[in-house]
């Protein structure tokens, strides 16, 4: 087992370094875009809703609220939506025997995870320096939810890669399904503001749980009675199990042209 694990580690590292070079290589400011993209995103939302939201959610400062919504969601989106055509885009790589299809998604999750986490921490630090009071007494919980979100994204990414390969039509359909998730996950409004009958529907979405839990972990006064870590955990484990099973079943077909 040991040499196999070592091979996976080496392969994922090689893919990780390669993705890092290709992801921002074509833009002029390179890696700076990791920071600029979410920053622009948050600024626009702040400009649009800053004043209203400041009054509607007194329990959490709105910039911090947005940071905890936008950053994790963008990270999730990057992993999942680019996994759909991962096989097509990397067909050449699979000619090297050590590279397995699952390594592509592993490397992507790792890269987006590292970028997303670094940017999140950096912006959090900026907020703290700007005088924002950030309590870190719930740090273990925050890390836990963050990792769970990454594992959830990985599982869904793996599933989408397999679906994209088995049914090419899904490359048209699935992006249409991902887009509304932005609104359904409460990236820019708290679920507590949604009227009860509709809130129950939104709570089906595990992603909404993840975002609310991350907010609650940073600001304890932010209400999180309606969301549950166990729900997110169950979803993640179930999805992971199912995608790995699907992957096992499709292992031969993935290599067959």
């Amino acid at each position: 087992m040991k040499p196999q694990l070592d091979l996976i580690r080496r392969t994922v590292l090689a893919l990780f370094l390669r993705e890092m070079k290709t992801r921002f290589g074509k833009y002029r400011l390179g890696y700076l875009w990791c920071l600029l993209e979410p920053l622009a995103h948050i600024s626009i939302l702040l400009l649009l809703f800053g004043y209203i939201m400041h009054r509607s959610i007194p329990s959490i400062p709105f910039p911090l609220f947005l940071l905890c919504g936008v950053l994790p969601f963008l990270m999730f989106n990057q992993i999942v939506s680019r996994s759909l055509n991962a096989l097509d885009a990397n067909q050449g790589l699979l000619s090297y025997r050590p590279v397995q299809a699952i390594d592509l998604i592993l490397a992507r999750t790792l890269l987006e995870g590292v970028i997303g986490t670094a940017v999140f921490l950096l912006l959090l630090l900026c907020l703290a320096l700007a005088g924002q009071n950030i309590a870190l007494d719930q740090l273990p919980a925050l890390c836990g939810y963050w990792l769970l979100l990454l594992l959830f994204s990985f599982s869904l990414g793996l599933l989408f890669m397999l679906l994209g390969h088995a049914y090419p039509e899904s490359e048209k359909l699935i992006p249409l399904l991902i887009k509304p998730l932005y609104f359904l996950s409460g990236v820019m409004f708290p679920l507590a503001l949604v009227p009860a009958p509709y809130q129950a529907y939104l709570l089906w979405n595990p992603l909404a749980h993840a975002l609310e839990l991350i907010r609650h972990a940073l600001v304890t006064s932010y209400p999180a009675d309606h969301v549950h870590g166990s729900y997110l955990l169950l979803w993640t484990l179930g999805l992971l199990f199912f995608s790995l099973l699907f992957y096992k079943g499709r292992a031969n077909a993935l290599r067959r042209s």
Partner: protein
Amino acid sequence: MIRFENLCKSYKTPAGRHYLFRQVNLEIPSGKSVALLGRNGAGKSTLLRLIGGMDRPDHGRIHSNKSISWPVGLSTGFQGSMSGRENVKFVARLYAKPHELAAKVGFVEEFAELGRYFDMPLKSYSSGMRSRLGFGLSMAFDFDYYLLDEITAVGDAVFRQKSAALIQQRRQHSQFIFVSHNFEQLRQFCDVALLLDSQGLRYFDDVDLGIAQYRAENHV
């Protein structure tokens, strides 16, 4: 030794299933380099991809206890926006230990003789330069079998001479499976032949016999 057991391979096409191999059973003995003969579209590259493990048969299997390279062709696995060096580094990370990385990159850089192009994006390469990089890259690692898909055909005379010398040297320990339309070259490097055509896959234990058969059947 590479053994094909009940190997079947077909492709789905709009005009129905196209069969390349039906129930192929044969064995390439150890220590023999193979000339793979056949016309364009006969399935030579597919066979190399099957042997290299990047494609799977419909039924049956390919059994070997040797290490086998990836199919070395013009278009495999390179990323156009990355430089030659970065592409080489990537593959070296897959196949070599971290401490060997620099040595492998150095070998390819020296062998391919791309000069400043080694640090330029791969999409600016000519096909000759691509083949130099691809061939040099595969030679940086020790495999029991190297799969070469018309890779030496596009290089210039200097490169061909250089690669011929390297192949001869490697043949003391490793074997080659060659796809080439240059009979001289095949005679020089290969011991046995596989002939692939509409009659299926046939094995000849002498490369000259295989070439003679191929020439007779195709009137060349």
